[in-house]
């Protein structure tokens, strides 16, 4: 009995001491990986070519299918907002400076359509600036840009240039 008491005492003492001689703690680690959002011009352009000044009003049109094609890449099935310049001013200022004549401006009105994740011109849908569209399961969206340029009857001749901007964001 005395031996059992002795063993019990030793075990109890050992257990108590062991429980107070080490300690551990765990903490959560976290990181969120997000695919970057990008847009790039795949092919085409917004060059309306050379047009003869005929002394009367003209309207030049470019179908989006034959304009510029943009590819948007990001997180699959995530919505992105699309902002673009609905009206762009083209100017012949550089031509005027080099060659003289008259300075003039033209107005380009953009026509933008989307074909979802299809890289070919399939089921195009017009979109207004500010619209939000969901990327495909592959994280893609295709935008096609065309538009119109109005030429007045007394439009000065020259090379007209301007910048069309399209912005996407999550």
């Amino acid at each position: 009995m005395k031996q059992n008491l002795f063993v019990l005492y030793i075990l109890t003492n050992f257990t108590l001491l062991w429980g107070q001689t080490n300690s551990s703690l765990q903490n959560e680690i976290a990181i969120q990986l997000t695919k970057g959002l990008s847009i790039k011009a795949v092919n085409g352009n917004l060059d309306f070519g050379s047009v003869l000044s005929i002394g009367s009003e003209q309207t030049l049109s470019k179908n989006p299918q034959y304009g510029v094609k943009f590819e948007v890449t990001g997180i699959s099935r995530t919505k992105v907002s699309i902002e673009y310049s609905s009206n762009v001013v083209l100017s012949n200022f550089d031509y005027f400076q080099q060659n003289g004549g008259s300075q003039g401006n033209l107005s380009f009105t953009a026509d933008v359509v989307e074909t979802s994740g299809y890289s070919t011109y399939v089921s195009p849908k017009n979109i207004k600036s500010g619209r939000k569209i969901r990327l495909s399961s592959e994280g893609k969206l295709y935008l096609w840009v065309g538009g119109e340029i109005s030429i007045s009857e007394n439009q000065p001749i020259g090379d007209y240039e301007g910048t069309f901007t399209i912005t996407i964001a999550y």
Partner: protein
Amino acid sequence: MNIWKTISVLMFLHYALVLGQTLGYQSGSAAVTLLMPLSIEAGNGDLDFGDIIISDSPHHEILNPTNGKEFIVKGEANRSVTVIFDNAELNNYEWSSLTGSESGNLEFIPDVRVNNSQSVNSGEAIILDKNGLVGELKLNVGGSIEIKSKQPSGEYKGIFIISVTY
């Protein structure tokens, strides 16, 4: 009666039982060292690396221990403790199952410092500095995570465990 008093009483009883069974008197000394219990608690900060944009090239994300998680060890002053920790695995399984996206793993390699300066290796012994009646040690944990070039996106989570022992 607290646990330390219980131990003292048991020791005295044990000594008395042994003494009563001998034919003659024997004397000896009994000694015990009572240590301050060892504990580790969470301090300020966290191990959240935040939102990272994946690029086409692999890179390391680094969390400086100064900006990471603080752990406070308390125990017997001027006594050394052994600090033990290991790398941790993160995965995006929960996010992947909810979104149907590709799953992936990451490895967290910890960077542990004492008082934001001296680097600590796992298994290293460090002395607890006297702070009033207790010994104290502050550990700061940061680390790095390697992001591969085709790493699946998503919310990655894992658990870092740190232990101390006399």
